[in-house]
């Protein structure tokens, strides 16, 4: 085959995470001598299918896809199979009609949540806070199921690895933006004057950094809060000025790698017929104020 073309569909192309992911994918395609098309579908299931159809009609040879809704799995898998185009799911895993998993590259949402929970528990032990003085805030985007899996993992590991109880958890809904996280956390702090210390986690850095900012704005000392984020997209904002805050660390996943891995796997399949592996998980790296210097060049723009 001479002209190889790879299609990349992602659910939220304007989020820094996916911006980096698509950049990685594009790089890999170019390196492999293939043409590359990507499309942002903005959480729109219908547009996802239309885009899939359009790309297949355009004659792409392989498709990587981050679905906006995991229920699309069967349809997506069937469309690709029918057209004989290899497909790989990124970030959000899907299954075909028969329940077989589609080859996957990305993170294990629940497992990452567990790592967050474990780190939170560790930091809590180090602080030596009295149990009753601690409020736990689960900052939730209930509309995104990958987010709920992450929060679920964090909650499970935190409770398992500490003496904290489920009754201490306050569930705060946010809309996946940082300002909203600030407002929601601020009100949560006000609503619960009985706690002096706070532990919190969310779907991503936006939620956790927003909560940390809320603590600062409400005049809580930095050492009274422990929050750990996921994805590293706000690490630079949090650590860039070298000051301590309640944002203690983040599970950085290099989304660029997800994009790159997915495309490389597709290229191998197209060129050499190598079967796509069932799951390729990437491991997060735990970035904190201490080790930020090692990551700065990768995490900060310009």
């Amino acid at each position: 085959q001479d002209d190889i073309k790879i299609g990349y569909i992602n659910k939220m192309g304007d989020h820094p995470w996916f911006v980096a992911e698509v950049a990685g994918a594009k790089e890999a395609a170019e390196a492999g001598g293939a043409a590359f098309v990507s499309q942002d579908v903005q959480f729109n299931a219908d547009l996802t299918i239309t885009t899939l159809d359009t790309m297949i009609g355009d004659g792409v040879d392989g498709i990587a896809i981050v679905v906006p809704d995991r229920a699309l799995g069967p349809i997506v898998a069937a469309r690709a199979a029918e057209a004989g185009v290899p497909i790989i799911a990124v970030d959000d895993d899907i299954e075909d009609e028969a329940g077989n998993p589609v080859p996957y590259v990305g993170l294990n949402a629940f497992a990452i949540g567990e790592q967050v929970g474990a780190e939170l528990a560790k930091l809590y032990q180090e602080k030596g806070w009295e149990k009753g003085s601690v409020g736990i805030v689960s900052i939730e985007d209930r509309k995104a199921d990958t987010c709920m899996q992450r929060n679920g993992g964090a909650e499970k590991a935190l409770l398992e690895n500490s003496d904290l109880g489920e009754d201490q958890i306050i569930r705060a809904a946010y809309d996946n933006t940082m300002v909203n996280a600030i407002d929601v956390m601020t009100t949560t702090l006000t609503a619960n004057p009985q706690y002096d210390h706070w532990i919190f986690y969310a779907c991503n850095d936006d939620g956790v950094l927003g909560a940390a900012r809320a603590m600062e704005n409400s005049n809580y000392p930095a050492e009274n809060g422990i929050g750990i984020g996921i994805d590293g997209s706000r690490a630079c904002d949090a650590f860039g000025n070298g000051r301590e805050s309640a944002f203690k660390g983040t599970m950085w996943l290099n989304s660029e790698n997800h994009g790159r891995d997915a495309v490389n796997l597709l290229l191998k399949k197209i060129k050499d017929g190598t079967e796509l592996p069932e799951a390729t998980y990437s491991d997060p790296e735990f970035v904190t104020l201490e080790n930020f210097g090692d990551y700065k060049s990768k995490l900060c723009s310009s």
Partner: protein
Amino acid sequence: MSVGSLELNNRGNFMHRFVERVGIHNISLLVALIGLLVIFGALRGDVFFSTRNLLNIGMGVAILGVLAISQTGVIVSGGLDISVGSIVGLTTVATAMAIQSTEMAGMGLLAGLVVGGLAGLVNGLLVTYGRINAVIVTLGTMAIFRGIAFILSDGQSISIFNDTFRWIGTGRMLGLPIPIWILVLVAIGFYVFMHKSIVGRNYYAIGGNPVVARLSGLSIPRYRVAIYVLSGVMAGVGGILLAARTGSGQPISGSDGLELEAITAAFLGGCAMQGGRGTVVGALLGVAIIGVLNNGMILTAVPTFYQMLAKGTLLILAVFLAEYRLNRS
């Protein structure tokens, strides 16, 4: 120039009557659309005009088309329905639940249409008898319907495995995909309704000036309620299509923001904010422009951020050309 010339001009010349018939605005939209076809045809002639790609474009705008057309009806009547996106989401959930529990495709259709109609009825009653601004009512019910959809589904998507039902989203008849058939039927139905039937024509009067309409003996409340119910039912049709295409009922994905696209298409098609103006053909042309844009930008591999720029620019340009020609004539 009294009565004599009156008859003379009624005969008119053909071109003039054609323009008058189709409407200068629609002709300009057509020109804009042809412009886009030429551009994308030149850039990706290899696939752009293939039957398959043209059908893809049609499939891509089927749901939007249904909503834009019924939104045109609402706007013509002097209202606005911002809740249609939410109703679509709600009806996908209702449809999926009905199919899940009865295993009958027909029940899914029924559930979608009935729930859509009920949602529309709520809007219509609030606007008409609550005497509340349509923008506020439908902004409010947008949140309410979405809330209900989330509560019913617990925020999870509900899979639909019924093949008969799924056929609506994937099947074909005489070579044409079912969603496109449905769009065509809805368009013809609305065209006849809005432009040929007495009831439909009365909506132009009601939207154009409700006082005049009332003083001419039109029962505005009944008309108002009816158009919102119709809008709800059409959102139900959209929900059924969405559920059939995605094979699932889901409160938000695919329906969120649809209202804005539908309203955009309606305005692009020549609706006026204050009501009384707008056509089905215009709405269809608006939808076609949006569909061609979306498709063309994927085919020509415009990067995400530049897509936003290009879409915005082309939207403005299309209307600018339309209005410019209108003003000159």
